[in-house]
């Protein structure tokens, strides 16, 4: 159809009606679209998403158990330490799905004792499996290159050979978390995905010097569950460790003082930084485990304010003798 305006003739009524209807429809549609998507307030500052939360992984009736084993062989000392507090069967039941939170922070070989020892990881995985665990997950959010950390420390290989699944975290494994009553851990990304379906959690940490907090042991080990720009929390190191102690209630912690890092921690890097303290601690109370671990480093509670803070907040007891720890000497 030719346009009547172009060929000079005037518009007839019919054409005028059609054009007017099209124009009206255009105006109405654009008006509706603008009305539908109008934004009177501008964007809101931060969107709040539903927050992740950790359940308690403690086994009722096993509170306040602790054992301290003297011995140089990690596997044997671990078995003795667990037997002394009732055996792994007391904590891991058939069908349990266990997460081992190891310390794999640095890409250093196991001999430097800056990370959880592969022998210990391997033995724990085997014990969990023997107790009936259907799945064992080994994870940490390291500081150095993550793949190198899990490989060089020997943890990945030890865990996989023992039948565990190694989870090296990715960005989307972290979910925002707010600790009830927490000031620092508020809307903060934590390593949540590997915890899906998990029924028991065991923390595995070496005894290490740490200049800022006094020492890095089982409580500081939970730092590896934090994502984001977690380094800002070093400004209040004792507070963040206190909140971490409240954030996660493990089934059990294993504190490895076979070789304690006395200085240059938490990285170490030299055999001369280590002292053969030949001690293995198993405890259901991480605060008590750390309080004892401090003695291996020759430090007092006043050197590690976070322990007292965690104890006052109800995360455990700083006076480990109250737990009547079972002491076993494997050296004879």
């Amino acid at each position, binding site marked *: 159809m030719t346009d009547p305006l172009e060929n000079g003739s005037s518009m007839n009524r019919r054409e005028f009606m059609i054009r007017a209807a099209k124009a009206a429809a255009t105006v109405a549609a654009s008006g509706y679209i603008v009305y539908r998507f109008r934004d009177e307030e501008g964007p809101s500052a931060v969107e709040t998403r539903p927050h992740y939360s950790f359940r308690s992984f403690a086994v009722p009736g096993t509170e306040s158990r602790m054992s301290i084993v003297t011995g140089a062989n990690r596997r044997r000392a671990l078995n003795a330490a667990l037997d002394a507090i009732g055996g792994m069967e007391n904590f891991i039941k058939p069908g349990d799905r266990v997460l081992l939170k190891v310390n794999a922070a640095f890409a250093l070989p196991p001999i430097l004792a800056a990370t959880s020892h592969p022998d210990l990881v391997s033995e724990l995985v085997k014990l969990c499996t023997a107790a009936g665990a259907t799945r064992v997950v080994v994870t940490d959010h390291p*500081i*150095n290159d993550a793949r*190198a950390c899990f490989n060089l420390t020997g943890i990945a290989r030890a865990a996989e050979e023992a039948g565990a699944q190694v989870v090296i975290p990715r960005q989307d494994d972290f979910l925002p978390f707010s600790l009830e009553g927490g000031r620092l851990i508020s809307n903060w990304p934590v390593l949540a995905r590997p915890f899906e379906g998990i029924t028991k959690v065991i923390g595995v940490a070496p005894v290490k010097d740490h200049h*800022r907090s006094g020492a890095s042991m089982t409580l500081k080990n939970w730092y590896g569950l934090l994502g984001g720009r977690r380094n800002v929390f*070093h400004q209040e*190191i004792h507070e963040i460790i206190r909140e971490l102690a409240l954030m996660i209630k493990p089934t059990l912690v294993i504190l490895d003082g076979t070789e304690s890092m006395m200085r240059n921690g938490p990285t170490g890097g030299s055999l001369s*930084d280590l002292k053969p303290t030949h001690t293995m601690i198993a405890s259901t109370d991480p605060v008590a485990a750390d309080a004892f671990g401090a003695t291996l480093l020759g430090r007092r509670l006043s050197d590690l304010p976070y322990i007292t803070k965690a104890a006052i907040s109800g995360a455990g007891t700083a006076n480990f003798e109250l737990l009547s720890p079972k002491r076993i000497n494997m050296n004879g």
Partner: protein
Amino acid sequence: MKIVYTRRISQLFFLLLFFWLGFVATLGTAWWQLRGWPVNWFIHADPLAALGVFLTTRTVQVGFGWAVAMIALTVIFGRFFCGWICPFGTLHQSIGWLSYRRRPLIEKIKANDYRPAQRIKYGILTFLLAVAFVGLIADGAKIARMAGLSRIAAGSLQTGLLDPISLMYRSVNLVLLPLADRTVLVTSLGPRWYAGAGLIGFIFAVALALNIWIPRFYCRFVCPLGALFGVIGRWSLWRIGKTNPKCSMCMECETHCEGACEPSTKFRPSECVLCMNCLRACEDNVIAYRTYPSAGGEAAGVDLTRRGLIVSMASGALAVPVMRLNNLLGANWNPRLIRPPGALPEEPFLDRCLKCGQCMRVCPTNIIQPAGLEAGLEGVWTPTLNFRIGTSGCQLNCVACGQVCPTAAIRPITLDKKLGRNAFAEAGPIRLGTAFVDQGRCLPWAMDRPCIVCQENCPVSPKAIFVREVFIPVREGTHVVAHADELTIDLGSSALAPNIFATGDYYCRPLPAEGEAPHRIVANTDALITIDPNRPFAKPLKPGIKVEILVRLQRPVVDPRYCIGCGVCEHECPVTGIKAIRVTAENESRNTERKLLP
């Protein structure tokens, strides 16, 4: 099977091989990761890279044996590399074919006309080789003690800027693979980042897009490697040509002629990429691949005018001397340019680096980045370390970059050498630079906030970062005691925000301070301060005296004797904009004149 199909299979094979080798250049122990895969094969089969490095260093690395083989094969068969192997050429050919597929015959033939501008690539080749060759002159002048000449003559390796193999490696390593892997994250745990990838990607895209206008645009007008093969190929034993000067001149042979080498008339052997399309298309069966010159005549040699040759040689010879007037190799060296561990001193480094990006691809922490102008114009796209962009610093137990470098610009060092262990104990560790604390930005130095993340993460033993403990009065931190016992101080009125001094880092002591160590605060309300029960006051403070509240700070200090410049501290520093501790190249091992310590 027709020869053209064989060529297509060969092209597809080498293109897929190229992408596969790029993919497996991933640090790890799985079969599809960097193990024995010949990830540098294409570079080592590249005669331009081999010749360039030969001119700058007078050595031919054994890997370049493949390039020598390519030269030998070219002398026998002609420029087969361009038409049968080159992955960049295959991409050009595909795009050109797609673009011209539906166009009329006459346009296709016209697109494949020989153009005098095709001589530009010989100019580019001459320029790049001249840039490298002057280095040889400079070395000779030094040996001959010709002081003046050795002061002005300077060369470096710049072939990698336009060498299609380097360009392709760079584009795949720094643009295509990071983009492709972003969704699936197979070769890395998180996305990979490359500074300046936009420009590299833009150049790659433009080079490909030009095929829409003229097929194999890059190959015909720009490619210095193609030019080199053209120079060698003019003497080839076998060549395309007409068996009979007379034919129907249907021009079918030129409808898909990739090299624009005019097989219908006066054949140009140095332009022919042996695509063999003419062989297949000829309806009169007069085109053959044989040892005789074309019956239609041959254009002798390379079409480069004497004037063009002189201009490109002269500008190539002067390029580096002019660029080096900036004195970046002397007193004006750039401290923000941090080369990977094992990198040669700057001048020999520039003699070898192809800017291929292999080190950047393999670096597990993604800190090796293509330089912009940090290393001057001649150092564009050479590797430099950026500790903000990656996932950590240079990992103590990693030497991957030197192991993949195809020309040993980053030497293949052992861990013992990197860390200064065993046989290398006396030489000490390889230092990339030194960390400097910026006291105006560091939290404990500038803002009275405890931190020392840098000290904690320093990976060497003994740590290169140590701390000085100080007690600093907090802002408005002096108060008057209203009442006190051994463990508490009552200020009598609301003076403090509850619990702000309870973090374990705050202390208090009476004034005037008489040498008594401050007491740690464990709790405070708005008016009450409680101190650590392990160390109470000897006797309660008297009402009316002043107490001051102090913050205990550990201030980081770098000990240059131990710092290796790995950058872990810089990466971890919680001041994430301009970092409060930064590595610069002072004291780097590779340039002894940049020593910091006597």
